[in-house]
């Protein structure tokens, strides 16, 4: 995979936006159709893996990605505990569908960042 393959890069380059749209669709429609935050996040991470297979270019700052991931975890915990454990879901029950969509988006962000970090860590930093 170190040498540049024209066939692989052309094919993956044309499929790339469709995978991106599919992942975003899977996250935002997780409460209606099969899928959800975890699966959609994994699909979004597959986009970054495709990018590595086309051009092995180290232009992603893993530090920022990890920062985003930790922030997403904090928001997940705050949102879930603050909305359900405090009993607000009984009084503001109109907010529940929006809560589901928000949680799906946050979980998708977190899983995509996490899978990307694991993959890039293995691909770029491990040797020997």
């Amino acid at each position, binding site marked *: 995979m170190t040498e540049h393959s024209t066939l692989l890069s052309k094919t993956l380059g044309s499929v790339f936006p469709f995978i991106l749209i599919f992942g975003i669709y899977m996250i935002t429609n997780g409460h209606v159709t*099969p899928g*959800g935050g975890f*699966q959609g996040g994994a699909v979004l991470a597959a986009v970054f893996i495709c990018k590595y297979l086309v051009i092995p270019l180290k232009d992603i700052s893993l530090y920022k990605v990890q920062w985003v991931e930790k922030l997403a975890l904090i928001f997940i915990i705050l949102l879930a505990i603050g909305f359900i454990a405090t009993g607000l879901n009984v009084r503001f029950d109109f907010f529940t569908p929006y809560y589901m969509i928000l949680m799906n988006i946050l979980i998708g962000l977190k899983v995509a960042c996490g899978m990307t970090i694991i993959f890039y860590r*293995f*691909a770029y930093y491990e040797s*020997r």
Partner: protein
Amino acid sequence: MLELTLLLLIVLSIAALQTRSLRNAVIYLGVFSLAISFVYLLYHAPDVAIAEAVIGSTIATILYLVALQKYKIFTIYYRLQDSEVEDTHYFSRYKLQLVKSLEKFCTKQELEAQIIYSLEELDDILTKHQYALIIEEHEAFISIYAHHENYMLDKLEFFLDNEPAFIRPYRIVKMEEIEGEVME
């Protein structure tokens, strides 16, 4: 349809266990993940099927393949003495024989040998470069330096002992143990 796929699962898992090369085992595991995600779909669990197909069949397979590719290149530094450079017989016969033996070993282990002839001092190679083996030649024997965590070392020793074309005496130095001696 369901029974056929379940039988396919058993066949694929046994194939993944029994195959000789690691690369084939990874491919068998990827196909196994695809088949088991189809089984989940037949059991009316599309969420789990999507997760299994994406993670097991795509991300894990590519991760394993990249890791195997990473471990494939086996860098060997051949350190030449100054007197050897001036020698007109740059590659004498036993030197070629040694390099050929090492390449044979790498081919046997599915590795790709990358041999670098170097004039640098041993300390420089140790500190500045990524290496798997460093070979240095003395009057009577050959020294092979390797990192002490190098997992190929036992196999290399076994191979060199059983190689009939390799007659010169050698010694293997593991780098961690003689750290002080090298840095003197």
